[in-house]
C-alpha cells in the first residue's frame, strides 16, 4: 500500500473552528466534556478551541436541556431555549429566579430574582403554576431522575380571558454512567396553546430519546416522535389535570412502542440486514466445493436470491 502523502491544503482558522464546533455539537448526551478534551488535543490550539467552544456550548446545552444546580442549594435550573432571557441568563419560573451561567464550564455562577417584566402576568401564572404542580407529580412518578419546568412562551402579558397564550412543558431526564460506558437522555417538550376563542387547548409534543453504549464498540440509539392532542379550556387546575393526562398517556404509549421496536429487532428488523441462518437452517457448506457449482447453477435456474 503506497503511503498516503497529504495533498490537502493547510486548513485555515475558520475551517478549524467549524470542525471543532461540529465535534462539540455532535457529542452524545453527557459527553461533551470528554469530547472537548479530545478535540483540544487534536486541535493543539487553545485560542481557536476557545472561540469554537464559546459558540458550540450554548447550542449544545440548550438542545440537550442540561440541568444545572443553583448556588445556595435552592434547586436546579433547566437550560432550554424556552427559558432563555439572554445567552447567559435562564429563567426558573418555579422559583421566579434567573440563573446566570457559564456555558463552557457548564455551571451556574450566580442567581438573581426575576423582574416583573420577565415573568408572566398573574392570569397566565395561575395556569402555569397549576400545570407545573401536576407535571412535578407526574415526573416524580414516571422518571427516577427527571427534571421539569413549565414556561410561558407566548402571550405572557395577557391580563385576562379574551386572548390566547402558550405554555411549554419541558421534561429532561439524563443518565450518565461513564464507568459502565453507557449514557442516555430523554427529552420531551410539550407546547400547549390556550386558544381563547375556541375554548380549546392544542397540545403538541416532541419526544427525543438517545442512548450511547461504548464498551469495546460504539452503538447509539436515536429515536424521536411527534404527537398532537387537544382538550377543553377549563379552570387552571382542571386544565392542568387534562394536559398532564394527555402527556402521561402519550409518553407511556411511546415507551411501549420503543419496547416493541426493540423486541422486533432480532427476528424481524435485523433480518433485512442479515439473517441468523440461511433459509436451509444449516451452516454454509464450505467444505463442499462441488456443491458450489451445483448451487450456483440451481440458484440461477430457480432465481433464488433475487
Amino acid at each position, binding site marked *: 500500500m503506497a503511503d*498516503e502523502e497529504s495533498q490537502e491544503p493547510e486548513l485555515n482558522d475558520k475551517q478549524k473552528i467549524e*470542525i471543532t464546533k461540529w465535534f462539540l455539537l455532535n457529542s452524545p448526551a453527557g459527553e461533551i466534556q470528554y469530547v472537548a478534551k479530545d478535540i483540544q488535543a487534536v486541535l493543539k490550539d487553545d485560542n481557536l478551541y476557545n472561540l469554537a467552544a464559546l459558540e458550540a456550548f450554548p447550542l449544545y446545552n440548550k438542545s440537550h436541556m442540561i440541568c444545572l444546580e443553583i448556588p445556595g442549594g435552592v434547586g436546579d435550573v433547566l437550560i432550554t431555549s424556552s427559558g432563555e432571557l439572554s445567552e447567559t441568563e435562564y429563567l426558573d419560573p418555579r422559583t421566579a429566579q434567573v440563573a446566570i451561567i457559564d456555558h463552557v464550564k457548564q455551571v451556574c455562577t450566580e442567581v438573581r430574582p426575576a423582574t416583573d417584566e420577565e415573568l408572566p402576568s398573574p392570569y397566565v401564572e395561575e395556569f402555569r403554576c397549576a400545570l407545573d404542580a401536576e407535571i412535578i407529580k407526574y415526573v416524580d412518578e414516571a422518571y427516577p431522575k427527571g427534571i421539569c419546568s413549565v414556561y410561558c412562551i407566548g402571550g405572557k402579558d395577557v391580563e385576562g380571558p379574551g386572548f390566547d397564550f402558550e405554555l411549554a412543558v419541558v421534561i429532561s431526564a439524563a443518565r450518565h454512567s461513564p464507568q459502565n460506558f453507557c449514557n442516555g437522555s430523554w427529552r420531551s417538550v410539550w407546547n400547549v396553546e390556550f386558544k381563547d376563542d375556541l375554548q380549546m387547548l392544542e397540545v403538541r409534543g416532541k419526544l427525543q430519546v438517545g442512548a450511547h453504549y*461504548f464498551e469495546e464498540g460504539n452503538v447509539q440509539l436515536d429515536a424521536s416522535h411527534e404527537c398532537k392532542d387537544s382538550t377543553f379550556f377549563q379552570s387552571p387546575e382542571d386544565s392542568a389535570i387534562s394536559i398532564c393526562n394527555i402527556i402521561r398517556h402519550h409518553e407511556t404509549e411511546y415507551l411501549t412502542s420503543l419496547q416493541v421496536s426493540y423486541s422486533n429487532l432480532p427476528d424481524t428488523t435485523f433480518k433485512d440486514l442479515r439473517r441468523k441462518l440461511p433459509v*436451509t437452517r444449516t451452516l454454509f457448506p464450505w467444505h463442499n466445493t462441488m456443491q458450489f457449482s451445483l448451487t450456483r447453477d440451481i440458484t440461477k435456474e430457480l432465481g433464488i436470491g433475487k
Partner: protein
Amino acid sequence: MEAAMGLMRRIHPKHAETALSALLSLLPEHSTDLLSQVDQPLQVLCDIDSGKEFILCEYNRDADSYRSPWSNKYHPPLEDGPYPSPELRKLEIEANDVFAIYRDQYYEGGISSVYMWEDENGGFVACFLIKKDGSKSGHGRRGYLQEGAWDAIHVIEVEPEEEGTARYCLTSTIMLSLTTDDKSSGRFSLSGSIRRQMNMDFSVADGHLCNMGRMIEEMESKLRNSLDQVYFGKTKEMVCTLRPPSEVIQMRLPDS
C-alpha cells in the same frame, strides 16, 4: 492519535465519514494510521468489463485506483499496480465466487468482494468484504427499514506452520445502522460499529478457503448476536432506566 480514536468512539456512527475526513484534515501526518484504524462505511465501484460492482478498501487500492476482483484490472487504469501471484489469484477468484453465494444465503442481496496478496513471511493476507443496503428501496426483503446498512470487513492473515497446518488471524469489523419510521411510533434509529479478533490453527487439508470461510461465518454470527443482544440491549436498558415502564398508570380525574 489516542484523542482522535477517543473522538471516533463518541461520535455517532452515522457521522463516521464526516468525522474521519475532519480528523484527516486536522492531523494529516497521521493519515495512514487513521485510515487503517478508523472504521468507515464501504464504497463501491462498477467494473467496466463485467458490469459487476466491487467494494473499495485500502487493500485493493494503489494511489487513486482500485483493483476489481472480477477482471483483476485497476479502475482507473494503472501502469504498474501490484497484483497477486497467478496462484493466489486463482484462490482469490474461487473465494469471490464462493463468498458471493455465502453472501446471498445470509444477506439475500448485497455486494461482496475478496482481495488477497502475499506477505513477506511466505503467507498471505485475505480481505473479505460485504456491503448490504437493507432499506426498503435497497435489498431489504421485508420492507421494514427506512434505512439500513451493514458493512463487514474481515481481514485474515494466514501463516503456514509446521507440516500441514496454518495459523489464521482474523480481525473483523462490522458497521451497521438501521432506521424505522412510521406515524405511530416516530423515528427509531440504531447504529453501531464493533471490531473483534479471533486466532485459530487449522489443518490445510480442507483448503484455506474452507478454514477462512468457517471462521468468518462464526465471527459474523457472534457479532450479529452481540450487537443485537448486548449492544442494542444496553441501549434499551438505558431507556428503561430513564423512564421505567409502569404497570399501573393512574389517570387523575378532575375534581369537579
